[in-house]
């Protein structure tokens, strides 16, 4: 086992099975993957290949059926719900395809949410929310409600929410999937900037164009890791 202090994520032989009444589906089989600090990895593959399942496991939203998962050298595959929730709020930042802002909360309240769950004090929360929104150029919309924003703006707020907790890794699930090409490009440039500033990013995408923003791409097909491309 090659564990490295630079490895943020290490998967070893990870598999994920789903059972319905009669059928057992293997969404992932024997996946080995390592992501080092500061790396931008794209997980590519066609629809239904298991890439989002992989991202869910990486984000501790789902548990592998088999294999090992080390997050910052800590085995996490058998952790309980509460410990997983703690790791999610302290180590992981999510960016969803559908933005997933909470409609009843304002922009700044949405961004503040991970800090609230981390128990960060009010003054520090306000300061970090301000910084995060400035980073994505949305500070001027802090008091707005999500419904008052365009799709691109909403995704920038979602990015701010993902980074505000200073996570170890950003997990992005088709971050451009709900955006037109112009807005998609802007979001990708934003992720690129974050990467440049040192963020570790793992992004799921089916669009090879956006895969090019990553340091390397991982290809999934039928739940198996088929290829590991060299740096783009």
């Amino acid at each position: 086992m090659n564990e490295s202090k630079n490895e943020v994520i290490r998967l070893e032989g990870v598999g994920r099975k789903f059972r319905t009444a009669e059928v057992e589906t293997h969404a992932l089989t024997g996946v080995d993957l390592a992501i080092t600090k500061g790396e931008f990895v794209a997980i590519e593959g066609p629809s239904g290949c298991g890439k989002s399942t992989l991202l869910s496991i990486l984000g501790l939203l789902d548990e592998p059926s088999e294999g090992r998962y080390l997050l910052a050298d800590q085995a996490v595959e058998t952790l309980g719900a509460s410990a997983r929730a703690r790791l999610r709020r302290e180590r992981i930042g999510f960016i969803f395809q559908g933005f997933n802002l909470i409609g009843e909360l304002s922009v700044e309240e949405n961004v503040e949410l991970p800090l609230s769950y981390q128990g960060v004090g009010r003054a520090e929360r306000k300061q970090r929310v301000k910084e995060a929104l400035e980073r994505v150029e949305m500070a001027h919309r802090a008091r707005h409600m999500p419904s008052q924003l365009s799709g691109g703006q909403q995704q920038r707020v979602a990015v701010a929410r993902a980074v505000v907790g200073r996570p170890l890794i950003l997990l992005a699930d088709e971050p451009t999937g709900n955006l037109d090409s112009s807005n998609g490009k802007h979001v990708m440039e934003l992720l690129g900037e974050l990467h440049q500033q040192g963020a570790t990013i793992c992004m799921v995408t089916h669009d090879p164009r956006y895969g090019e923003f990553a340091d390397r791409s991982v290809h999934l097909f039928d739940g198996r890791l088929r290829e590991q491309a060299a740096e783009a």
Partner: protein
Amino acid sequence: MDTLRADFLFGLRALRRTPAFTAVAVLTLAIGIGATSAIFSIVNGTMLYGLPWSEPESIVSFRLMHKREGEARAMTLAQYRDFGAQAKSFEGLLATFFDQAYLTDREEARMVYAPKVTVGSLGLMGVEPLLGRGFTEAEGHPGAEPVIMLGEGLWRERYGADPSIVGRALELNGERATVVGVLADARWFPRPATEVLRPLAFDAVAAARDDDRYGIIGRLRPGVTMQEAQAEMDVIVGRLGERYPKTDGELKLELLASKDLVIDDAGRRGTLLLLGAAGFVLLIICGNLANLMLARSAARHKEMATRAAVGASRGRLMRLLLTECGVIALLSFPLSLLVTRVFVDYLLSLVPDSITYMEHFFRFDYRVAGFAAAVSGLTVVLFGLSPSLKASRIDLSESLKEGGVRGGTDSGSQRLRSTLVAGQIALALSLLVTASVFMQSLVKISRSDLGFDIQGALSATLLLPEGRYDGPPALRSFHGRLEDALSTLPQGARAALTSSAPLGWRGPERSFQIEGRRKAQDEQPPRAHWSGVSSEYFKTVGLRIVKGRGFAASDRDGALPVVVINQELADAYFADRDPIGQRIELSDLASMKVTGGSREIVGVVSSITEVRGLLPPAARPRLYEPLAQQPVQRVDIVLRSGGDPLASVGALRQRVKGLDARLSLAQTETMVTRKNTTMWGGDFFAKVMMILGLLALLLASVGIYGVVSYSTAQRTREFGIRAALGAEPGQIAALVLKKTLRLSLIGIGLGLLLALLLSRITETMLYGVDARSPATLAAVSAVLLAVSLLSSLVPVLRAVRAQPMEALRLE
């Protein structure tokens, strides 16, 4: 009409597609309407049905009040005669005497409700016999051949509805009386549940002014108003008061409408309160249904938007939705009648067996069906209007977009749902507070010290027919032999005789003068209830001799006439002196052939506290005389045993039969039963109120569950996002509970206000309980809060278990 028909058919089809929703809606609505209609059947039987006599609006009841004491007094035949002779406002008057009698035509005597009425009463009130005839003028004179009319119920039950009963002689109170007719139960003459009707035979000239045990009813002449009649009667009563100051001096007469004969003020207030409580339950059900309809509208928002897009106006959409609600109400209507019947039967089952006439007061007829139909119609508006208004307000551009805003999930609908649930909590809380204060009042009354131990005691009634036990010597002799026989009861049981056992009929009132005490000219003498008792009575019942002595075997006929008074009478009239040795002058008691005269007070016994429904327990002044000195025709045997008193009834019966094989015991019942009978009205009221309160609580909790559950389902995505961002399960649960808590606290606040408003009505109906008791308000609020939070348990678990993956909408 065609569109209405189309809407109706569409509503029917739409409801058929969702059988679970339809079944829940129809059933809960039927329960609500049924419960309300069942209580309405009491209103119908007691307040609306009125007296089933011709032109009941011209019938008035006389109520004589003592001006100073503020108590109602029965009237005398002398007053009946004088009123009849002097008043011009009336076509005629009738006098009644509500009495019981023994039907002794079979082995086991049966005590029957056998009022007496003056002859001509049936004609005056326009009541035709079901069979045979009424009483003739001649049958109203003393000494006339005894005749009776049978009540329809008794005629059917005991004589198999045999028409040849007319002309047959039955034995009543040991004497033969010829049946001249049968009276329909539905005519309630002179009151419901009359089993035997007897003519009130009296000598008008010799009518006594102090024999006050009669009721008087009159029929106003056409064109005479109640106020005119009242004014005339005020003059007449005033005149009689001046002429007979001792008996009529401090009296005033009130004329009451005929419906007041059926139910008194307390009963009317209680019944209307129950109807209001049932209405609250119905409102809570409508709240639940409105919430269901809102959820249903939300699910059908696209359909409504499509209809609007193809040209349906808002009014048309509203009509469609309201018609659907109408179909639900229509389907629930026949079921609600069935539920009403079941509720009425259940309510009747709460009435003790000894109260035989209550079914007359639960009148389930066309009026109740009409009420149920009207309420069904009203519920359409109550549960259908808001959801229909909401659902018909459509933003087409938004609604028809793929994934556009769904109707019923917007903040307006959420607010409406929350308002409905807060209202439901408020109604349930106010109802529970009201029910619990009445229940506390009932428990206080029930636990009040009656002055004797009711456990292990019973009473049975024995009537000595005048034909065979005529006059004091015969009665005295039988009482003596009976006391001897009762002294040999097995297993340590002992028994005593009295003219009126505790916890039943109070016995007659007698006036008395304290000898040697000065009184104002024309001052009416004080009155007290009277009982003739055997020497063992106080010991058997368990009354304490407070002063002096009880009765002894030496207090026989010919010895010094003596009385024992109770503590209540001693406190009221002998507070300034020792009553022992004082003498009082007692009035005659014509109704029981008991003579008056001077008596010496030889003892003071502890008082018996009376309980009546929800009225405050109270002891009344009472005089006791030895039966040996004042024998009576009808005696109650009071028996006390170490164990179950009913086990001694066989021996008791044997002793009686051993003395006279033709005598039978009647109304054999334990003191516990007698207490339950006297308290039944309050017991019934408090129980029904509590049942409605608990039903309201259950329904409100269903409402809370529905709203919180729906809102949780709507927020699944949000909970998923929060979980993905690291929220702990407890933090998610807190979000759901916060909503429940907010709703509950608003509802509880409103409910407390409503409860305080209701307390203005209920406070005068309670005993020893504060209608605004902070402890009760706090306890009921706590129960509501706990039930609210408990109702949220399932939605909370659902929210906590929401998978964050759902938020990502994977794969």
